[in-house]
């Protein structure tokens, strides 16, 4: 790391010590940096450019504050007017799709998962931005390329990912007879069973929870070697491996807290912080909330990677946030400049610090951000972008994979079997039929 980065680290450390709110890198300092950056940057924004940016609505308040600070500095330094609008996770995609369809309204969308791949031909080629950032900050993790590239071109810039990892209560795990969190699926099942016996149950969403349910059920499918499609996008869900993962998840489900079939993305957060739930899959947001509202729970909880099953390697799926620029924008240079500016160290470091672990980076250099080591309970979230696969699994990430995940094919397959609506064969058949329709 060069000297500039070191300096920044120090100011950061001070900031994060001051409070977990915003790393208070002075606003002037940021503006000075932004002005210098704007002069040196390879992208010269169009005169009087106005760009409309849609982003997902924040979960961690300080993250949003840091983001808006950065936007402010960018506006002042470049003269570009940036309109930021927020939408909830579920509404981002419909809005972006309408913009793509009508060719107006938005210039950039910061969305989730494979959003740019839903309409790759409407996305501006941002290969230059990706190369610039990759070269400057230690290179992209492999998942970043999978998320950002289509047919050799970058159609979106992966900004960050939010990890879905194991959240557990330390005391409950120890009482269940485990000194450390199990690393394999067999041990994990034992833990879940023991937790149920001790009346300190585990629970993970089997409802239509876009984040939580998709994340852990894809993990379960993949870790037993099951896949929706193979490398050539051929539907291969009907396999003994899929059946094995169904049986495994059924055993987990039978030992879960009741009601997980109706859970949405916030259900487990509420139950965990209320002290009714002792093990679940989630982002770091439970911990962040608990530190404020339930310190005794924050004290007693920790995070772990997802266990590894028969395939012998991590098969996690985390929620990525790529930012795309529409090719019909009137200010492509301004958009590119903004996308690059977001991930410059001077912006990105305070920003992910403010996010308190909720946002993990795709660029190798940011492994050094102190947020990951300041609190050892944050550390596992540092690696999620390194460990994540894409929603496509082995197949190609594109509109088909995006459609399959939006239609909850895998989630419903597991829920069908676990809730007893279908037997193993029936559940797989339904999923296979739906997948074949999408992947025709």
């Amino acid at each position, binding site marked *: 790391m060069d000297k500039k980065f070191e300096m920044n680290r120090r100011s950061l450390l001070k900031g994060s010590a001051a409070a977990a709110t915003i790393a208070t890198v002075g606003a002037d300092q940021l503006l000075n940096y932004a002005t210098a950056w704007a002069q040196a940057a390879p992208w010269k924004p169009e005169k009087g450019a106005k760009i409309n940016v849609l982003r997902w609505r924040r979960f961690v308040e300080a993250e949003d504050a840091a983001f808006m600070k950065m936007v402010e500095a960018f506006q002042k330094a470049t003269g570009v007017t940036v309109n930021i609008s927020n939408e909830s996770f*579920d509404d981002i*995609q*419909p809005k972006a*799709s309408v913009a*793509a*369809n009508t060719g107006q309204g938005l210039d950039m969308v910061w969305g989730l998962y494979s959003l740019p791949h*839903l*309409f790759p*031909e*409407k996305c501006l080629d941002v290969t230059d931005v990706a190369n610039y950032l990759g070269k400057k900050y230690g290179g992209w993790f492999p998942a970043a390329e999978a998320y950002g590239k289509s047919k050799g071109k970058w159609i979106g810039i992966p900004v960050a990912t939010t990890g879905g990892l194991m959240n557990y209560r330390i005391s409950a795990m120890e009482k269940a007879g485990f000194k450390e969190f199990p690393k394999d699926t067999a041990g994990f099942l034992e833990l879940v069973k023991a937790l149920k016996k001790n009346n300190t149950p585990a629970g993970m969403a*089997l*409802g*239509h929870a876009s984040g939580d349910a998709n994340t852990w059920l894809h993990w379960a499918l993949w870790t037993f070697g099951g896949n929706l499609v193979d490398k050539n996008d051929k539907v291969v869900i009907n396999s003994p491996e899929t059946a094995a993962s169904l049986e495994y998840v059924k055993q987990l489900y039978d030992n879960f*807290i*009741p*009601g*997980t*079939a*109706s*859970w*949405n993305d916030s*259900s487990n957060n*509420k*139950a965990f912080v*209320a002290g*009714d*739930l002792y093990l679940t899959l989630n982002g770091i947001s439970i911990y962040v909330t608990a530190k404020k509202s339930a310190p005794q729970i924050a004290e007693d909880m920790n995070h772990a990677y997802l266990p590894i099953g028969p395939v012998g390697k991590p098969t996690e799926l985390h929620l990525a946030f790529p930012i795309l620029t529409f090719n019909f924008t009137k200010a492509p240079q301004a958009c590119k400049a903004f996308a690059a500016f977001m991930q410059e160290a001077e912006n990105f470091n305070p920003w992910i610090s403010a996010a308190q672990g909720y946002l993990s980076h795709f660029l190798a250099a940011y492994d050094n951000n102190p947020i990951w080591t300041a609190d050892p309970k944050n550390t596992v979230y540092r690696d999620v972008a390194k460990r994540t696969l894409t929603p496509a699994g082995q197949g190609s990430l594109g*509109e088909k994979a*995006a*459609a*399959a995940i*939006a*239609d*909850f094919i895998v989630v*419903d397959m597991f*829920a*069908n079997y676990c*809730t007893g*609506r279908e037997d193993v064969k029936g559940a797989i058949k*339904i999923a296979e*039929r*739906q997948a074949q*329709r*999408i992947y025709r």
Partner: protein
Amino acid sequence: MSTVEETAEVSRSGEPSLWSRLKTNRNWLAIWFMLPAAIFLILFLAWPLILGIWLSFTDARLARPGQFVGFENYEWLWDDSIFWLSVFNTLLYTIVASAIKFAVGLYLALLLNRHMPFKAIIRSVVLIPFIVPTVLSAIAFWWIYDAQFSIISWSLRQMGLIQENINFLGDGNWARGSLIFANIWRGVPFVAITLLAGLQTVSPSLYEAATLDGASAWQRFRYVTYPLLTPIIAVVMTFSVLFTFTDFQLIWAMTRGGPVNATHLMATLSYQRGILSGRLGEGAAIATAMIPFLLAAIMISWFGLQRRKWQHGEGND
């Protein structure tokens, strides 16, 4: 032909031209006056409908125009168990909820029609569920039905009646029942207040006459109130059925069609497949499949309204 020659001559000789006749002719004038309304209706009602039906015959996806594929979407849906489940759910939801809404609404209307203290206040209180934005009431119900924090489960547990929380939204049948209950809660005021308005138009002299003739309370209802109320009932129930059939917000805010599609209505499934999953053609096909059901509901009340028997009771054709 002579007429053609005549008109040609007329315009040549300075008589009213075609344009001025179009401006002044009474029949044409009528068309001109209707045109704005017609354009409005075509642009905002008929055109989207036609476009939706057209989309259902294509394989259009979000942000990409589709190819005409004939009935392919419908053929696929015909064999799709989730689609048929959603049809079943929609019918169950509509029939059960509408029937109960009618019964409870009528009962409430009859109660409110009596003379009692604080009549005006009570009548406005009844409207509250209808006034609260749907999404808000849905979120309130979502908490009431929560798997862990349900107030109902909690109360029953405190009373020692149950050991474990009721799985309101996690079990298919419980979820259906819970949603139907929420819909009834929301829909009853509309039925009740509209029927009440109808009741108030019934002349008290009819009741007096019936009472003098020795009619019992039931007979007064059956032979005076009910026949006079039928037109209103037909209108109210048409609206009620339409609203229930196309309900979206309640379901979406509470279950998203889960658990395992047990509460997917055609409207929610159409949204999930058409917008979220990006398959506009298939989503449009599901939406189009709702039209026959809606038409049937409208027809029933339409022909009901035309029939004097319905309006004035039997034996009064």
